[in-house]
């Protein structure tokens, strides 16, 4: 029964994604009968390599794919090394989950309005400090080399990697290890970097690779913050897909295979970097050095996280201000009046998407949790890790969305399925599942097996031990996984739009549709609604363990 669950899980995920990728790639080699082309050819590739600025588009995708995880992970590790157990840490741990759930599109929009030449920051310091009566003509957002895109991605991925690290960390029993290292004379920050970091990295490796793929293939963030002349590869592919000139389909299909290659290249570069850092670490460990570099690591670790948080808070502030702003002329730091008109205008439009959003995210997440727990439990009971097959689970994170979604649409229509809610829920499940798995699997696998062994020696059945020992012990990671899963579902755009045929609308799909109209106030209203939903989820996820374990201080200590 349980084994069946894990097999069906893999089939359920891998089949549509692999088939989708395959079908979507047929036109890349000229095969697309509806457009009267049923012969294989390389014409699409020739066209693709003649696209102006293609090299730069690919380069920016690869660069963001490598630099985003590199910088984010560095910041997260330095932070954990320097701040674990501090007051700052307690404060940040409380904030991190809600901030993580800031949907990408909303965050990018908030950030764009924060740092633009006419943005909130510029308004606050003008004209007082700068003398600007009109915004300066500076290329900040949408800059040619994708620096603001990189900045936006880092700000978004730092909380994600931090949360993933925090979820994995308890298994390493960091406190004991640090204590041992400290008795050997290592300064705390150095001790963490030398003792914990090398063990923690393998536990967060898959999330890191998911970050690479996401950063190299993101559409929504790149649309808002990324370069425009030329845009990133992913944005160009989407515009080719959507182009009324149907012949660009071939180009789009070839482009999406190239995107797959670009994401892979970023991963390969990352794997090389891994080797390099592994070597570096070994050398560094061998020096036995106990304190050199601590001051710098400490300073960066301690300041980077508050900086990231301040940027996120600033973006949030920008959205909130705009959601209630009346007319607001540059360089006023504040709107000339406040209004709830934007909310009144959207109220009637909000209810149906809101209902869909909740319904889709709850059902896809619960379904995902069920499948993931069944898989993990079967893996544990059979005693062998099916990691060789389970890497398939990460396909939705390792293959850029754009590539397989178009193929999935064709597939579902072959099956005669109309766009309906269950199809959208299934589409969300593809993306929610890996995240639920990522956030739950390590905690599940690393849970001390002796608990269950003790239970068995006391004559407790597998089932009872599952419900009464494993699940309660894993309550907090389970809830975190649910909160993450829902946050992912809430922020999804492409699957809702494509599989729902635009008929099934969520807060996010509506918000992105509004982006093309770019009424800043209205987008802000939707973004605020969009980001408050996952925050609610995370608050519940944090609150339930506190309630359940109010008499078990050891259970919440590490969360």
């Amino acid at each position: 029964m349980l084994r069946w669950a894990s097999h069906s899980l893999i089939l359920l995920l891998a089949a549509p994604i692999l088939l989708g990728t395959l079908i979507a790639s047929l036109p890349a080699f000229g095969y697309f009968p509806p457009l009267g082309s049923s012969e294989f050819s390389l014409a699409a590739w020739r066209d693709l390599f003649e696209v102006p600025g293609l090299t730069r588009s690919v380069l920016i995708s690869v660069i963001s794919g490598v630099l985003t995880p590199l910088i984010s992970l560095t910041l997260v590790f330095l932070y954990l090394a320097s701040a674990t157990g501090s007051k700052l840490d307690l404060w940040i741990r409380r904030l991190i989950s809600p901030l993580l759930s800031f949907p990408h599109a909303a965050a990018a929009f908030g950030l764009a309005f924060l740092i633009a030449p006419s943005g909130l920051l510029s308004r606050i310091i003008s004209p007082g400090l700068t003398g600007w009566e009109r915004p300066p003509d500076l290329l900040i957002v949408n800059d040619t080399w994708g620096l603001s895109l990189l900045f936006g991605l880092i700000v978004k991925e730092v909380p994600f990697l931090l949360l993933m690290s925090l979820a994995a960390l308890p298994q390493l029993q960091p406190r004991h290890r640090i204590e041992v290292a400290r008795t050997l004379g290592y300064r705390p920050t150095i001790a963490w970097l030398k003792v914990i970091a090398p063990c923690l990295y393998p536990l967060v490796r898959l999330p890191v690779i998911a970050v690479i793929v996401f950063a190299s293939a993101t559409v929504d963030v790149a649309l808002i913050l990324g370069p425009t002349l030329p845009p990133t590869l992913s944005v160009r592919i989407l515009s080719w897909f959507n182009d009324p000139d149907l012949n660009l389909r071939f180009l789009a299909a070839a482009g999406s295979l190239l995107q797959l290659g670009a994401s892979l290249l970023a991963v390969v570069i990352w794997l090389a970097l891994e080797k390099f850092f592994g070597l570096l670490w070994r050398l560094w460990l061998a020096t036995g050095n106990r304190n050199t570099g601590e001051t710098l690591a400490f300073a960066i670790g301690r300041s980077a996280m508050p900086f990231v948080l301040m940027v996120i808070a600033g973006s949030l502030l920008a959205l909130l201000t705009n959601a209630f702003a009346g007319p607001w002329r540059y360089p006023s730091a504040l709107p000339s009046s406040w209004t709830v008109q934007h909310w009144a205008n959207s109220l009637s439009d909000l209810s149906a998407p809101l209902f869909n959003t909740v319904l889709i995210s709850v059902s896809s997440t619960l379904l995902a949790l069920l499948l993931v727990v069944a898989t993990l439990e079967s893996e544990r009971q059979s005693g062998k890790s099916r990691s060789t097959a389970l890497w398939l689970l990460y396909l939705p994170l390792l293959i850029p969305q754009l590539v397989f979604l178009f193929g999935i649409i064709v597939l579902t229509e072959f099956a005669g399925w109309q766009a309906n809610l269950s199809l959208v829920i299934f589409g969300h499940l593809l993306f929610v599942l890996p995240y639920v798995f990522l956030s739950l699997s390590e905690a599940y696998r690393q849970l001390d097996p002796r608990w269950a062994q003790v239970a068995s020696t006391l004559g407790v059945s597998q089932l009872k031990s599952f419900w009464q020992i494993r699940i309660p012990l894993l309550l907090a990671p389970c809830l975190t996984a649910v909160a993450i899963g829902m946050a992912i579902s809430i922020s999804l755009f492409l699957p809702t739009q494509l599989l729902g045929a635009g008929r099934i609308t969520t807060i996010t799909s509506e918000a992105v549709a509004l982006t093309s109209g770019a009424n800043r106030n209205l987008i802000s209203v939707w973004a605020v609604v969009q980001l408050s939903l996952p925050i609610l989820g995370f608050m519940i996820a944090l609150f339930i363990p506190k309630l359940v374990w109010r008499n078990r201080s050891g259970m919440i200590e590490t969360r």
Partner: protein
Amino acid sequence: MAQLRVSSAVIRIILLFVLLPFSSITAAQALDLADWSALEREARGETVYFNAWGGEPRINSYLNWVADILEQRFDINLQHVKVADISEAVSKIVAERQSSNDADGSIDLMWINGENFAALKENNLLFGPWAEEQPNFKLVNADRFPEMREDFTVPTVGFESPWTRSQLVFYHDSRWLAEPPQTIDAILDWSRSNPGEFTYPRPPAFLGTTFLKQAVLELSSKDPALFAPVTDNEFQRVTTALWDYLDALHPTLLRAGRYFPNSAAELRRLMGDGEISLALAFNPNEALLSIRTGELPDSVRTYVLQGGTIGNVSFLAIPYNAQHKAAAIITANFLLSIEAQARASDPNHMGSTTVISIEDLDVGARRQFDSVSSDLASASPEELSRKLQEPHPSWTPALERAWIRRYSAR
């Protein structure tokens, strides 16, 4: 090896579906458009999925009003499917065609014109002819206004029902720019001495492409080749002046031409933020409407270039595989009614320009359109009568592609 087997199986599946007979299409086309009351009966209880650009709250709330009326009077459930770009709907129809979904399409009605219409029509992906059978079609007086039967020079032959009119207008912030340039050439001269004060949306954003068309029309003195299908030679000949012009213009634009806004709305936001002092729009009432919502300062004024600007009509079309064609036709006919058109042209609601020939109406009906006031912020009707015809739709992708090739990777 396993992969190869899968792909050949998939190809066989695709072939199978593509070769299926189109029996369902013939059945659907048997709607009797002459018997209007039978059509209304058939439409009862149906849901119309209306795919239309969803980026403008004014239009969205206007469509909410339309939905209420349709529900009350015709028992039709109108669902506005908001798309960021109607080309998404075109893609959707193609995907459905690809998978042989020939009768249960997810789109019943769409707001469309230009190259999107041309692409769908060329690939036989539209239902029709139906538009001229509508009782309200006579209101547009297509004999006097041939543009009601012509979409970017392509005859609509009853496959499209007129919905709204648009015209390119320029608007400027009179605080920074009192005497705006009146020709395409004058814009370059002015921009040279006032760098960073103007920009236009990046093609293929339709307003940006319209600017290119406007420029090429003016720079080539309305070369007749522009109104026929584009050829390589003609394109080369006609657009040389355009590229010289843009090469000179771009370094003087906002951000020295290294960035272009992605939509008309982003352009409007740049104006609202005081980043630029000259911009363009495709709705003559845009400045007026945006001043009312506080998005633009009340110092903004609208005008039309001396030699006239491009104007067009946008239409409603029904995909060949729409599920609810009867209800879609009833909806289109209502959207073309005096009542619906009058409300659409009211700046307090949608603020568009009507396709109805107002002079042909009787006094009482004409009064319903009185709310279109002459406002300082709007262009005057005299200015708006200076209209240029859209070039043939094949020029649109050609211009867009050439622009992207030249300027997207500098």
